[in-house]
């Protein structure tokens, strides 16, 4: 079994156009999340949890997804730090603001769920839950259907390092590697070093959590989650392998957590953490691809966009209380 090296880095293989597109989505995701934090601080939402610091990993993932509905496309079992992925897939920032505001126009849950809890059936994004591990138990189900159907669709499961402590992570490893029934599953661990307030070093024997996949005969690897190009290439390699071999892969990305766990812990900027947007802009500038002024222009474009979206959302209606009775059960088909 050939595994990826512990740190994968194959920079320089992305086109200039792709690099700039990745940067654009990273800025979009970061500025959207920062607006969400301002909204919760301003009393325009009840709770924030999100992904600032994970853009370099989440955006490439979103760009590499085979987006669509049904088993021929990829399924996404995401956790609540997946806004860069969903935005890179084409979600509109205003819809995240709507979910933060809990408006009736929130397309993901109509005011029922926390922000960043997506449910997008036309893109196979199954409902995101506040649980940190259940997606690992559910993902093999969609992958089982995909395996049976054939094609190249795969099931992507994201989670954090803390979630791997739950038994569902082992469930996923086991169900994905049953002899002769290996599943097209991409297990992704975004390792930010914390479980809420507890350092991973206090609760996990190893920082290299992907290595748990090894005894199951699963390919696995680790990548610098602050390097978008390395992430893109590592994800592409893993996904190509799964699409071709119809077998699982476990990839760990070591990411930053720029604003702490959630609004419950203050959501303050932690300056000691690496900032992948700042780092990538410096790199693109050094490569002569993006000047400081051009980078600022990208930020300004999204600032204007988000400001207008924010204003619009504040004027949108809140759900009616009677809506709680909607969608408890799907309508039965006619007999």
């Amino acid at each position, binding site marked *: 079994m050939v595994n990826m090296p512990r740190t994968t880095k194959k920079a320089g293989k992305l086109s200039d156009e792709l690099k700039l597109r990745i940067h654009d989505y990273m800025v979009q995701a970061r500025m959207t999340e920062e607006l969400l934090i301002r909204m919760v601080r301003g009393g325009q939402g009840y709770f924030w949890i999100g992904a600032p610091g994970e853009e370099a990993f989440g955006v490439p993932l979103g760009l590499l997804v085979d987006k669509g509905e049904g088993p021929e496309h990829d399924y996404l079992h995401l956790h609540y730090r997946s806004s860069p992925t969903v935005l890179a897939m084409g979600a509109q920032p205003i819809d995240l603001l709507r979910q933060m505001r809990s408006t009736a126009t929130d397309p993901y849950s109509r005011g029922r769920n926390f922000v960043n809890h997506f449910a997008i059936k036309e893109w196979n994004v199954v409902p995101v839950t506040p*649980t940190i591990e259940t997606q690992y138990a559910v993902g093999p189900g969609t992958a089982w*259907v995909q395996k049976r159907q054939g094609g190249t669709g795969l099931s992507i499961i994201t989670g954090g390092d803390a979630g791997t402590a739950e038994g*569902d992570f082992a469930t996923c490893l086991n169900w994905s590697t049953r002899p002769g029934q290996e599943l097209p599953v991409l297990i992704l661990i975004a390792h930010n070093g914390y479980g809420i307030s507890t350092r991973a070093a206090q609760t996990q024997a190893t920082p290299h959590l992907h290595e748990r996949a090894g005894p199951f005969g699963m390919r696995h690897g680790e990548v610098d989650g602050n390097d978008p190009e390395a992430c893109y290439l590592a994800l592409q390699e893993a996904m190509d392998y799964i699409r071709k071999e119809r077998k699982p892969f476990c990839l760990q990305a070591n990411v930053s957590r720029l604003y702490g766990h959630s609004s419950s812990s203050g959501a303050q900027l932690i300056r000691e953490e690496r900032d992948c947007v700042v780092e990538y802009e410096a790199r693109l500038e050094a490569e002569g691809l993006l000047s400081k002024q051009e980078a600022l222009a990208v930020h300004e474009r999204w600032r204007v966009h988000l400001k207008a979206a924010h204003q619009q959302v504040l004027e949108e209606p809140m759900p009616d209380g009677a809506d709680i009775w909607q969608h408890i059960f799907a309508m039965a088909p006619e007999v």
Partner: protein
Amino acid sequence: MANLAQAIRLALHYGEEHLGVTDIFGEDVGPPLGGVFTATQGLKTAWNAPLDERGIIGTALGIAYAGGKPVAEIQFCDYIFNCIDLLKLCGNAHWSSAGAYRVPMVVMTPVGSGIHGSIYHSHSFESIASHIPGWKIVMPSNPLEAYGLMLSALAEPNPVMYLAPKALLRVKGEDLIPGEPSDEKSLNQMINAPLGDRSGWAPKWPKVEAFTVPLGVARLCREGKRATVISYGRTLPLCVAAADELSKEGMDFDVIDLRTLYPLDMETLQRSLRKTGRVLIVNEDTEVTNFGEHVLRRLLDTCFYDLEAAPVLLAGADVPGIGLAWELERASVPQQPDIAAAMRKLASEKA
């Protein structure tokens, strides 16, 4: 006549052929065993899962998300308790996604006492299951209705919890399933796997036909005026037998089989209670926070002033488990004499 386990098997076969069932899976569900109670022998979509209940429920949810129609078995309901959060997700996915996702899945699990299952194979689950919104919950009490309830469950676009009373799984029915051979021996030869090597065996399925028991509709099993007796699962036939026994003493009772625990058929219950003015609810779950308490509360909401006597719940003893010795099991869950005594007392109370 098919027994209840065979009726489930025939229903699942019908589901595979006509209702789009894609996966029937769980621990020992596939060959060679075909389920510890044989309910899944010979089914073409049956397969064996790891001994991992969370994986079973999670995978079923994933299959349903991806357009499949899974039937997941938890071998004994005693093993389902570590899956509560996943069951919650199954039940709330449609609601939390504002209607975007449907979860057409059935979870089937044997419940209750009656097979000397001791502490960890005798639990009831309906009280906890009914506390997980978004699920429909059924429990049959005879083979024909086990068949009909399963077909309705398989046609549902929502998660359905199919609780199979394990004490009744070997009990034969009184009515033929449509398409079932009238000769019991023939049926057994056709669909029962042989003992020993089964590697070359395949079932010869009878051409069973559609027969559904609509979800949310109770059945009046016995009709009378002295009191209303409401039950389901293992205790239902005991209530019917007790009613037949008491009818010889001149006391007649309405005996209602709920069949579907959620949603409740309140109309049938209210109609009966308004006629009799007295109600006894019988089940074998532990009595504290018992599903029967909920049924009583719903009835009191609308029928309080129709009561002629205090309503009664006869349920299992509130003890940590059901002991293995028959004397202990007998003392833990209602038996026919207990039910008959409760009915006689209720019917005799002064208004």
